[in-house]
């Protein structure tokens, strides 16, 4: 006869990068139900549109999250540019693509480190973050900031990268290519990683579609959903395919992210080879009037910036739907029926960025 106990998981937990609270209803070490509870980092950022004019709001949009900061600013700028029908120059689009892919590299390396830490594999965690330092140095040299870049603006970008610098960056990526491959080799093949991830946190393809999973959570369950294929920024002229795995468990989500590292390096090299010369910004006159949903592919999935403006300096409404908040219903489903010791691994496998999820 199994009695039920309720164990609170979070908001403070060594494995969680950001605070989320889950009430786990357990029957003898097996989780029967999980009730999520968020709201610890709600900052009300969407209400700040009333205070800052639309050009200065980029600084707030990129501070929604520290890890996916550049893609948030791209999403916001794209929405305003679509409403005002601005033609952003090609060079600015390519630069935005290059920085977005660097952002994806650093986010996935961070996640691989945290995932290893959740399993107790500290050495792998530190090695993943050591490789990440090279990526952050490249970002700091070109944009000025390691975490918050501050280079995207309505109408283009604020800083340029010279061609000599681009060659240096691609050479650097070539030199760390071997280290990235060694790191991924550990994730693909190591016995302890496989023991803790294979068969854990199953999410079938139908469930992933019905519950609205996005990003690597959907790709690990066999759904080929990658917003970069719609061709925004310079992705229309780059050659790539979304990476899909059919394992439906934590191991396949891990493999998807590890393989996306190699894909991002390839995309950066393609963009750096084909970048055209030209201006990096276009002058913005007047105020936006209209509405638009701008969709971008963040490292964690599909992010939507909905902007509604009525011709004044302050926009009326900005709504951000981040991939982490879309992945909470699949998380609740995945936790049913798992062992309690697997809960940290499953929670981390959706890549929770709760700062994004709550704004």
């Amino acid at each position, binding site marked *: 006869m199994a009695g039920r106990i309720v164990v609170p998981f979070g908001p403070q937990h060594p494995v969680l990068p950001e605070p989320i609270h889950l009430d786990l209803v357990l029957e003898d070490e097996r989780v029967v139900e999980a*009730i999520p*509870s*968020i*709201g*610890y980092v*709600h*900052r*009300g950022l*969407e*209400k*700040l549109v*009333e*205070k800052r004019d639309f050009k200065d709001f980029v600084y707030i949009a990129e501070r929604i999250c520290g890890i996916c900061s550049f893609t948030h600013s791209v999403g916001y700028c794209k929405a305003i*540019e*679509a409403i005002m*029908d*601005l*033609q*952003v120059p090609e060079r600015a689009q390519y630069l935005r693509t290059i920085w977005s892919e660097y952002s994806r590299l650093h986010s996935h390396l961070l996640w691989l480190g945290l995932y290893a830490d959740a399993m107790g594999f500290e050495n792998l965690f530190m090695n993943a973050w050591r490789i990440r330092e090279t990526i952050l140095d490249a970002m700091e040299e070109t944009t000025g900031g390691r975490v918050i870049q501050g280079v995207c603006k309505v109408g283009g970008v604020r800083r340029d990268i010279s061609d000599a610098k681009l060659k240096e960056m691609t050479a650097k990526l070539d030199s760390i290519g071997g280290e990235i491959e060694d790191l991924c080799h550990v994730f693909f093949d190591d016995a302890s990683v496989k023991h803790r991830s294979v068969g854990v946190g199953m999410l079938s393809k139908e469930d992933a*579609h*019905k*519950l*609205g999973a996005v990003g690597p959570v959907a790709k690990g369950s066999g759904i080929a959903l990658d*917003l970069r*294929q*719609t*061709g*925004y*920024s310079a992705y*229309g002229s780059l050659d790539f395919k979304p990476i899909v795995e059919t394992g439906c468990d934590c191991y396949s989500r891990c493999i998807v992210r590890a393989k996306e590292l190699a894909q991002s390096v390839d995309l950066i090299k393609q963009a750096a080879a084909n970048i055209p010369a030209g201006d990096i910004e276009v002058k913005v006159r007047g105020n936006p009037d209209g509405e*638009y*949903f701008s*969709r971008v592919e963040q490292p964690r999935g*599909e992010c*939507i910036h*909905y902007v*509604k403006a009525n011709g004044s300096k302050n926009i*009326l*409404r900005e*709504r951000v*739907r981040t991939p982490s*908040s*879309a992945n*909470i*219903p*699949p998380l609740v489903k995945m936790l049913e029926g798992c062992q309690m010791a697997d809960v940290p691994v499953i929670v981390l496998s959706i890549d929770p960025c709760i700062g994004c999820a*709550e704004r």
Partner: protein
Amino acid sequence: MHKEEQTITEVGVDNLVSEVSKMYDEGYRLVQIGCGKYDDIFEINYSFDKDYKFVNLRLKIAEGVVVPSITGVYLCAFIYENEIHDLFGVSIKDIAIDFKGNLIRTSVKNPFNTPTITKVKAAKPAKSENAAAAGAKPDVKSDAKPDTKPDAEKKKEEA
């Protein structure tokens, strides 16, 4: 400039659930439910996507109208509907997993539904310790509304 085509169809409270069921049968996935308040009218957008085609259903209601939940069709809508209820005060009935206003903890109830900010001149505080000062800035016209205090404190923690 890449601008994708996005269609917006208006629906009413009565045919909302049937329109959403049609979307489900055609294989669309629910992307988001968003809400905005413009001059006493709440606009709720239901967004769907299939093969990168983006479709919206828009529901316009006045304050106090009760909206039916679509969690019967798409279970994942519970998180968006709870958020709309907490931030805007829109009442939605029959949500499958109902947090009853406790999903997002704010110090002010329904913060996005409060009237516009008024500028108030704050009293001149002592300039010494910045951590102790309660959100008032020296010599500057400040917006001293209660629910902007979390923003000022966040700035101090960020700095």
